[in-house]
């Protein structure tokens, strides 16, 4: 019995069935609990009430979702380019590492939510502060991971290329970059989530659009089911993008065991 269950855990079916069971079970418990203890809907709405809100407000939620998605993807694209560039520089040059790394780490410890009011002063409300906040959150893990990927190339691997008379650029493109790919992809999954966090933080403070704004305004009018509907939309987009990058990683890094 124990053995056959262990074998089941290894199957493809298990990887689909088990998470589904957990989600359904959580929702059922939630629904039953709210009903049983008579929790008012402005404290914790039941899943069915959230579903109803999603249905009722679907055009609004969709519009705000698109706003959030736009700023998130824009920021993520910028973070990808900026992070890879900065990470490559820090990872390839000892000088750049010494000069820039402490600054980078120091800057990263600042809570980005504290920057949003300043960004609003400089850039007004809406898309720009959201993109900047999301960028600032997302680019750090990318830069650090690319730098680590480059710095951990084995000296022997470098020697293989050097003994062939390869230039620094050839060593970078043929060994450094491929070696840091697994590190890059690990960071992308974190960075895309961070980008969402950044967009939503900025929208709650400095915007009149986006899911962050929707959730804050719904909560302030005690429309908690709508706020939850916004959260669900956020969660769905996050999971979708995470899945996309996980699949891309599997494809690009197919050489791995």
């Amino acid at each position, binding site marked *: 019995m124990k053995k056959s269950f262990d074998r089941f855990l290894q199957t493809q079916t298990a990887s689909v069935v088990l998470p589904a069971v957990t989600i359904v079970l959580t929702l059922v418990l939630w629904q039953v609990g709210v009903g049983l203890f008579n929790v008012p809907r402005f404290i914790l709405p039941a899943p069915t009430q959230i579903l109803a809100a999603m249905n009722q407000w679907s055009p609004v939620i969709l519009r705000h979702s698109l706003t959030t998605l736009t700023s998130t993807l824009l920021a993520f694209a910028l973070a990808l380019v900026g992070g890879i560039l900065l990470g490559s520089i820090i990872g390839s040059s000892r000088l750049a590492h010494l000069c820039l790394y402490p600054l980078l780490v120091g800057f990263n410890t600042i809570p980005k939510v504290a920057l949003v009011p300043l960004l609003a002063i400089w850039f007004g409300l809406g898309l720009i502060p959201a993109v900047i906040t999301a960028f600032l959150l997302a680019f750090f893990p990318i830069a650090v991971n690319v730098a680590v990927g480059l710095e951990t190339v084995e000296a*022997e691997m470098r020697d293989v290329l*050097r*003994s062939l008379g390869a230039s620094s650029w050839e060593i970078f493109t*043929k060994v450094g970059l491929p070696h840091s*790919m697994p590190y890059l992809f690990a960071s992308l999954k974190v960075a895309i989530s961070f980008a969402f966090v950044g967009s939503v933080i900025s929208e709650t403070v400095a915007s009149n659009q986006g899911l962050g704004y929707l959730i804050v305004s719904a909560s302030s009018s005690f429309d908690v089911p709508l706020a939850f509907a916004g959260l669900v939309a956020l969660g769905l987009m996050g999971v979708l993008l995470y899945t996309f990058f996980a699949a891309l990683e599997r494809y690009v890094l197919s050489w*791995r065991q």
Partner: protein
Amino acid sequence: MKIIGVESMLESQRVVQSGLSSPAVSGKPVLELRHVSLQYPTKGSPITIIRDVSFSVAHSEFVSIVGPSGCGKTSLLKMMAGLNTDHGGTLYFQLQPIAGPLKSVGMAFQNPVLLPWRTTLENVLLPLEVVEPYKRTFKQNLAQHEKSALELLATVGLEGFQKAYPWQLSGGMRQRASLCRALIHQPELLLLDEPFAALDAFTREDMWEMLQRLWLRTGCTAILITHDLREAVFLSDTIYVMGPRPSEIIFSLKVDLPRPRPLEICLTDEFHRLVSEVRQHIRRSY
């Protein structure tokens, strides 16, 4: 097959304390070491690893360097490749002082160091993407390059594995692939740093035969670092024995066994005599 009998190999002759004396070889030396020394910086006074090493290597000669651990054999090899230029004395490659990485060296390390994101074939093709003049026309001649890479892989018994990634190969297969990579661009100088140390005895002997075959075919000059005295005698024209740190060449030996040498030669009295002669000098140095 131009190798056989190129060198004037007299009787196995010994040159004890051959700090300066170079072996009797014909023609201009491909590689020459003059008073090479190496210090390793520490917090206190620097440690001298190599005191004074001089010898020269003739065209198409197969040279082995043996010696105790930590005597600077690997460092010496890196100097020959131009990877380490922070040393005393001078090394010459084709009469030019070595000041930086040489352009066309084939190098195989103790670890195979294959690039894990490349298939076996792509790993073997790597030098052709980097080394002049191949790199200029790499894309145009790809089909031809692939053909010669596949031939090379076949000679080491790796046919059918060209699409495999390094993790799918066994240790011996990886090592063989790394030898192919060291040879694909037909380097003039082949530098081998204990390439077979991690292999089991049977695989290792197969690799000796294979290496001898490839070396006879390409006619390159080869330097092999090894701990295995049988390996050194089987493969070499000349063996240099380095002493313990601070090291110098304490003994050199010409191996005058006919080529190509079959594995059975390891069972002959002459072979045993040569091995024990080298061994005695390694013992004496402690």
